[in-house]
Each structure stands twice: as structure tokens, then as C-alpha cells.
């Protein structure tokens, strides 16, 4: 069974062909490193998987079922969650409030319904524990490290029991120690059977966690294979075009 299967995905913007016949398979609990130079089509592919764009042609299957995404919410209903590069967190709110933002549980007292902070704190503490992160529900995001912020953003996706989590450049612009923290978060997701697509420029990070690597160049998939069968050198060659296909 494949968790996510893309067949022949193409997407054009006017005369520009951003993606050309991309076919990929992602197994349950698999971590895929998606790489490519700027403009290679990574973000277009991510946006198609997340339901922001519709492919011009091609099919998407989730758990072998044909799906069609018109809006991001359609992708979310199929269990696909995305963590954006800028994380989209509210700095002034607590970790718990950020995890539940837009989905706050409430309790009713007659005509008024109030936010159930206890439930928010308990659930988010459990999510952080699952991610083995030291983030605390009451902490204000503004004072957190880059790694803790990632934990909050990832915990938010866990709230809806996702099958696939897309991480857009999670290790860009954070310190080495925090990178290790984020990579651990990814391993924890994998251990829970969640498939991860890791979009990254940083070769060592990808090879540290990814089971498979996929490389896009000018809208075409030039490789998709096991990370152990590839190497950073080969991937660099594929990204730049020094190596045609592998």
C-alpha cells in the first residue's frame, strides 16, 4: 500500500511548465527528502499536495484512493498537513493557544461558551510529550527557540491525526543544536507511522533522517530512490544538472 501516490503530475502557469509529469510514491511512516534548486518546482509540488493548486494533469492517490483537492481543507480532510517555512505562529500567544488556534475547544454555560484552557493545555502537553519536546503549553511563543517553535507548529498538525506531514525548510535559519531537535521531531513522527515529506536545501539534514530522496530539476523528477543508495554528492550533481538522471 502506498500512503501517497502521485502519477504524472504536471502544472503549467501560462506558457511556463512548472512541473512536468512527476510521479512519486510515499509509504506509511516513510520520510522523503524533497530537494531541488530554487525554481525547480518544489513549492509548486508542495502546493499541489496541500491543495493550494490543482494540477494541470495527473492523479493524486491517498491510500490508493483517487482524490481531488480544490482547497487546502480538502487535503486536510485526507490527512495531509503542512508546516510552513515561516511557521505561521502567533508570537504573543502561548504554545497551547497556538496549537489550537482556530480550533479552540469550548465549554458551554447556558448562553455563553468559553474556551476550555484546561483541555488545550492537557492535550498540547500530551502532543509535546509524544514529540519528546520540552516545550511547555503555557510558554509564550515569542520567547521560544527555533526548535521549540517547530515543535509547536508540528504539534498543531498532530491535532488532526494526519497521515502525511509536509515540512517546508524546517531547519533553515536555526542553530545546530536546534537542528538536531527538529530532526528528532521528524523521527518521532515517522515512528508513529506518519509519512513525512521534508523539503530542504540542507543536504546533511536530509540524509540524517530521510528514507528516500527525490530531486526535482526544472519541473522534472530526476531521481527518487532510497537514501542509502544515493549520496550527497550524487544529489548535488542531480540538483545542478551535472548528473542527468539517477
Amino acid at each position: 500500500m502506498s500512503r501517497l501516490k502521485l502519477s504524472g503530475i504536471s502544472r503549467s502557469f501560462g506558457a511556463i511548465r512548472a512541473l512536468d509529469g512527476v510521479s512519486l510514491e510515499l509509504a506509511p511512516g516513510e520520510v522523503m527528502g524533497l530537494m531541488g534548486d530554487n525554481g525547480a518546482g518544489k513549492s509548486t509540488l508542495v502546493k499541489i499536495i496541500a491543495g493550494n493548486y490543482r494540477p494541470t494533469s495527473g492523479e493524486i492517490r491517498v491510500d490508493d484512493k483517487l482524490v481531488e483537492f480544490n482547497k487546502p481543507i480538502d487535503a486536510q480532510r485526507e490527512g495531509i498537513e503542512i508546516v510552513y517555512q515561516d511557521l505561521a505562529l502567533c508570537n504573543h500567544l502561548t504554545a497551547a493557544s497556538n496549537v489550537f488556534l482556530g480550533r479552540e475547544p469550548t465549554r458551554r454555560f447556558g448562553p455563553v461558551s468559553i474556551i476550555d484552557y484546561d483541555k488545550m493545555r492537557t492535550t498540547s502537553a500530551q502532543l509535546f510529550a509524544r514529540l519528546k519536546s520540552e516545550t511547555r503549553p503555557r510558554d509564550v511563543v515569542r520567547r521560544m527557540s527555533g526548535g521549540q517553535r517547530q515543535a509547536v507548529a508540528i504539534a498543531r498538525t498532530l491535532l488532526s491525526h494526519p497521515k502525511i506531514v509536509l515540512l517546508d525548510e524546517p531547519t533553515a535559519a536555526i542553530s545546530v543544536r536546534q537542528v538536531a531537535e527538529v530532526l528528532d521531531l521528524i523521527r518521532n513522527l515517522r515512528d508513529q507511522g506518519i509519512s513525512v515529506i521534508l523539503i530542504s536545501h540542507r543536504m546533511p539534514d536530509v540524509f540524517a533522517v530521510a528514507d528516500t530522496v527525490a530531486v526535482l530539476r526544472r519541473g522534472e523528477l530526476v531521481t527518487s530512490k532510497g537514501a542509502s543508495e544515493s549520496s550527497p554528492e550524487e544529489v548535488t550533481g542531480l540538483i545542478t544538472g551535472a548528473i542527468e538522471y539517477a
Partner: protein
Amino acid sequence: MSETLEQAIGQAQHRNWLSRMANLQVFWVFIAAVLACLALTFMTDAFATERNLFNVARNFAFVAIIAIGMTTVIASGGIDLSVGSVVVLSAMTISVLMEAGNPFWLSALLAIGVALLVGAINGVLIAYAGMPAFVATLGMLSAARSAAMVLSNNKMIWEFGPDHDILLWVGGGSTFGLPHPLYVLIALTIVMGFVYRWSRWGQYVFAIGSNEEAATLTGIAVKRIKVTIYMFSAFTAGMAGILMAGWLGSVTTNLGTAMELTVIAAAVIGGANLNGGEGTALGAVVGALLIEVIRNSLILLGISTFWQGMFIGTFIIVAVSFDRIRYART
């Protein structure tokens, strides 16, 4: 496991004594106001009299009521410059209607309705047409006062028809020794303190002010909520307008001129962050209280009221520097 989970829920990291102290801006502003009151009590005979305290309580209530609306706007990352004009438009609406013989309640309801309409226009211009809040409400500052002038033909109104006494009682009267505007303020403070903390709407106000894009991405109806925020701000200004009409017993088109600046000052001194994401209802009240105590003390001490702006300006700058201290250690 359950024990460590309990600990995780109960604790918070990143708190040192300095940030804790600075986080209590409301507390310090309150202390400043109390100290000023104590000093005045000893330095003058006139301050601690029932009459003067009554006046202070009533005068600051008008500013404080609007400052709660302003705090909501500021916490959402916006600004509302039109509140002073909404005050006069609301006061003029109720005056003109009552002078024409309409009952108080109907006229008050319509005055609030006009204020809400102004707020809705502000909100739509900002949220849907994408205008900067500063510009949209600056336009409304001019337009709403002009509307009040058109409405009244720029006359002073001091006769309010058959319900004349009701209006004067509502705005200028007192019950159990406390002026009525103060009751309105207390009720509004309690309700909004609760709403900020416990309602989804309150949470979203702060989320929008903190990171509007994030709020949008999580599916919050940001535009609709923004409209309601400006409507709420205009609502507080409209209420203050009605109360001020009753207190003064006459309404001119000068009412509420430059009031937006005092209101913004009160909100900022009380801890509202002009970058969005922070502010409390109690802070707005305490900020307004401090401004009124300063004003009152200058009069009682025989200092020229020309100094008033200097003091308020200093407090605004001190309040903003609190912000710098608070985040200096991150």
C-alpha cells in the same frame, strides 16, 4: 509519566523576575496613579473631597470607556482615529432626535446604531478594501464630524424634548454616590476582561494582532472579525457620546475634539502594544485614570494646564520603554 505531564502543564519557562515585573505594567501604572492621589491628598485640601473625587471618577470614565474599545483595536494591530468624531456624531444624533420629541430609548438606540454603522464602514474599508487602518479612520475622523455638523446645522442643542430629564439623569446623575458613567465603565471592564480571556473572539483579536497571516492560515475569519472590532470601538465611542450629552446638558459640534489622542494615550499607558497582540481592559481603565489624576492634580496645584501634555507625553514614552525592557532579554 502523568506526573511529568502535570509538571509540564503547570510550569512555564523563560520567566525571570525582570520580565515578571515589567509584565505588570498595569500594576505599576496603578501604583503611579495611587501615589499621585496620596500626594495630592496631603498637598491640597481640595483633592480628597467628595465633590472632587466624584468629578475625577466621572471625567475619567468617558475616556476609559472608549479606551477599552481602542485597546481592542490596538491589540488587533490596528488603530481607530475616528472615535472623537463618533462621540460627537452619536451625541448629536441622540440630541437632534430627542429635540424633535422622540423618546430617550429610541434615540439612544439609533445613536448607537449610527455609531455601529460608522464602525462597520471603518472595518469594511480596512478588512475588505485593504486600506491601512490609520488612513481609513483618519478619513472617518473628518467625515463623521462633518456629518454631525450637517445633522445639527452646527447649532448647539440644549433642549432634549419630553425625555430631557432622563438623558440628564443617565449621563449626569448618580446612584449610591457614584456617577452613572462609572457604572457603565465597570460593567464594560468586567465584560471585556472576560471576553478577552475566555471567548474565541477575544483570542482571535490577539491572534490577528500577533500574526494576521497565521490567523488567516488557520482558518479564522479574519476579515469578519476585523469589522466587528471596529464596530466595537465605535460602539464604545457612541455610548460615551450619549453619556457626555447627558452630563454636559448641551451638545456642540466641538464635543470630543482631539479625544482620540487622549484615548490612545490611555490605552498605550495601560499596556496596549501598538504593534498588536497585547492589551488588557483593566490597563485601559488604569491608563485613563492616571491621565485624569494628572490633569486634576495640575489644576488643584495651580500649575498651568499647559504642562498637562508634557506629563502625558512622558508617561506614553515611559510606557513604551517598558516594552523594550520586557523583551530585552530574549
